[in-house]
């Protein structure tokens, strides 16, 4: 066991953990902003209640994204000082831009949104949530551009053993980044869509159980309140799923050109093969598919790990240039399967809730579908994590493809003990906080939205345990109060 191994574990643990929260921040933020926009434009009260309900879930999650993100920026310097010195001239720029252009926007306007419900004009208040989510999405772009540079370095030259940027535009429009940004951001929308579906599914089941005889009229009835966000999430997930698939296909072709070793490892292909097949699971092969996906030509040649190893040894010297094939192979399949399952669920849901040809009450959401949505909650998140494992473990043994090896990136002055302490601290802290966040989210979903504010007859009252104000004119409370 060396400091290098623990440093890698720490990076893996903290990054995967960080990226559980970030996709929700990215996708759910836009979803909440959309709900508030709907309220602003229609004035319908249940949009406001949904905005506050999902807004609260968004904020509980946002906190975790923020605090785990700080660790990310520090640990390059702490654990990977050789890497930082080598790449800082190029890699540091998108990070600095991310802070300056995206994080300030996100955090400042989110503060205004949380506390500004009563202080800002409605239109301005709506603008603050949009500014915040633009910040979140912009930050994804900058960090993914930085990440893409590690896999496909462009716009630089190496001077005195350090990378020097020669073209910022090339770094920001790196082909790898342009394929990766839509893939990851749309993936974030799938994760957020899956989250909203699970929450809506749970509420529908819970409220049906509380009202088995459907005494609440269908149109105003409580499960009906969840129809709108569920439909919205279904549309969001299906569209985002299409973008994920399209950009994933583009990524596969870029891998063939730029990171053939990762592609070969993802398929477990050992020798250069023309007309290479694709196996969805071991033992099953679809002929010619891999060659077609990677090259656009069913007879195209896909390079294999062993042949690549020989070529890399010739070019870069004696070393093992093959990533952990087992992890890469299986994460590729988990990503595709779980991702497709989520998108399939959303398409099914769209069909189940499609509009009637003739006038009539909207189709009811079947309870089994609501239950499926709850059970599917982990799928998109696992697909996202698997995608990152494929992408980053598949990059090994390089930190910067073709330029810098991971083994040469670690901080020389940091000992095994120090990394062990920080790994232990972060793992323990993160574990405890994950538990706390899960409990907090579950409690809020169980409690449901705040009750309707005015004593309007027939207005639906939700579960809202312990939060009952029913005197007329009570305003909805701000989303967050200290």
């Amino acid at each position, binding site marked *: 066991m060396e400091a290098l191994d623990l440093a890698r574990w720490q990076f893996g643990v903290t990054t995967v953990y960080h990226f559980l929260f970030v996709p929700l921040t990215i996708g759910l933020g836009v979803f909440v902003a959309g709900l508030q926009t709907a309220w602003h434009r229609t004035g319908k009260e249940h949009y406001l209640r949904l905005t506050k309900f999902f807004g609260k879930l968004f904020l509980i999650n946002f906190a975790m994204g923020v605090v785990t993100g700080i660790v990310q920026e520090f640990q*390059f310097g702490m654990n990977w000082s050789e890497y930082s010195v080598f790449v800082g001239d190029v890699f540091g720029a998108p990070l600095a831009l991310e802070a300056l252009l995206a994080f300030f926007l996100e955090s400042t306007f989110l503060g205004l949104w949380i506390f500004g419900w009563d202080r800002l004009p409605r239109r301005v208040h709506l603008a603050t949530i949009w500014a915040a989510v633009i910040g979140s999405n912009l930050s994804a772009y900058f960090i993914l551009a930085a990440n893409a540079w590690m896999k496909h370095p462009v716009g630089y030259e190496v001077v005195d053993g350090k990378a020097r940027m020669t073209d*910022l535009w090339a770094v920001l429009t790196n082909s790898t980044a342009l394929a990766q940004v839509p893939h990851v951001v749309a993936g974030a929308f799938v994760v957020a869509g899956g989250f909203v579906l699970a929450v809506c599914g749970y509420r529908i089941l819970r409220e049906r159980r509380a009202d088995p005889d459907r005494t609440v009229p269908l149109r105003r009835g409580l499960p009906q309140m969840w129809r709108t966000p569920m439909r919205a999430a279904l549309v969001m997930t299906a569209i985002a799923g299409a973008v994920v698939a399209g950009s994933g296909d583009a990524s596969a072709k870029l891998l063939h050109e730029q990171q053939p070793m990762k592609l070969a490892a993802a398929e477990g292909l050992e020798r250069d093969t023309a007309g290479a097949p694709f196996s969805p699971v071991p033992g099953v092969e679809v002929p010619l598919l891999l060659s077609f996906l990677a090259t656009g030509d069913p007879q195209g040649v896909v390079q294999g790990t062993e042949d690549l190893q020989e070529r890399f040894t010739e070019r870069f010297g004696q070393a093992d240039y093959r990533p952990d094939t087992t992890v890469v192979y299986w994460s590729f399949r988990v990503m595709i399967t779980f991702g497709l399952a989520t998108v399939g669920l959303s398409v099914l849901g769209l069909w189940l809730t499609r509009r009637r040809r003739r006038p009539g009450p909207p189709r009811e959401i079947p309870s089994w579908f609501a239950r499926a949505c709850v059970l599917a909650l982990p799928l998109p998140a696992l697909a996202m994590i698997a995608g990152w494992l494929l992408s980053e473990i598949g990059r090994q043994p390089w930190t910067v493809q073709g330029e810098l090896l991971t083994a040469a990136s670690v901080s020389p002055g940091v000992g095994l003990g120090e990394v062990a302490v920080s790994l232990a601290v972060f793992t323990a802290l993160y574990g405890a906080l994950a538990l706390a966040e899960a409990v907090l989210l579950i409690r809020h979903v169980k409690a449901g939205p705040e009750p309707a504010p005015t004593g309007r007859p027939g207005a639906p009252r939700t579960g809202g345990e312990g939060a009952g104000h029913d005197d007329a004119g009570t305003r909805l409370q701000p989303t967050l109060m200290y």
Partner: protein
Amino acid sequence: MELPTFWFVVVAFLWTGYFVLEGFDFGVGLLLPVLSRDEAERGQVLGTIGPVWDGNEVWLITAVGAMFAAFPAWYAGLLSAFYLPLVLVLAGLIVRGVGLEWRGKVRHASDRAWCDLGIMVGSGLPAFVWGAVFADVLYGGAVAALVGGVFSLALFALHGAVFVALKTSGPVRGRARRTAMITSLVALPTAVVALPGIPAAGAKGAAATGWAASPWLWACALAATAALAAATALTWRNRDGWAFTATASSIVLGAAALFGALWPAPLPGLTVAEAASGPYTLGMLTWIGLIALPFVLGYQTWTYWVFRRRLTAGTP
């Protein structure tokens, strides 16, 4: 001015902004149990920083990001050399951040008490460690680190108390003023030791350059001490706004002395020129920064304007 010099000033500016802004956040969090007696008052105290603390923290992210981009060797050297202290800073910022965000969303008083503990510990740890780290960079020694840590802790506590006095009314304001007076009994003596120590260390480390031994450095350090004394007097005289201006000025002057002393060698054996990125990167970042920074400063100032009212207990 050459680009590396300019970017050294930019990094110093960002750290200074961070110390001034998150300085009072730390103070508010640290003094929470002292300043408030019940839940309504705790809400009042934390409400003073509620809308702004996250934006204030981005000053740190930007300062560190700017160091990474403009001075990779400084960034990597500082962060890997102070490994365990920075683990403490990060752990502190994590529990403080979730404490602040979650305490309004938990239902049980005991959960809220956990959040408050996180806020307090998570404010105190970084407030202490930042002073210790920079004192250690300058002097290199446990005693210096301890003095620096106690100084920054007391300084930020005082800054936070003065801020709460400025932003609240009622019993909390009275308590904040008294706490500020008591805190200054620690802050002032440690300031007298720590602040003039900065130019002394700078003169020792980089005397050859001339600038480090410059009278300006001494002037900054002494003015920072004087501003702290003035803050105490102004609090006594009920001049909340001026007292806050004084503690903020003290931090600005102290940070000016600190970064003046770090010039031209921010780490032992590493000069700004050696650590700097190439002229192309620095030039591009300069243009983007010059265009973006006014907007950032503009909307952050606007936030403070929107939430300018003094808070009373029981209102969000």
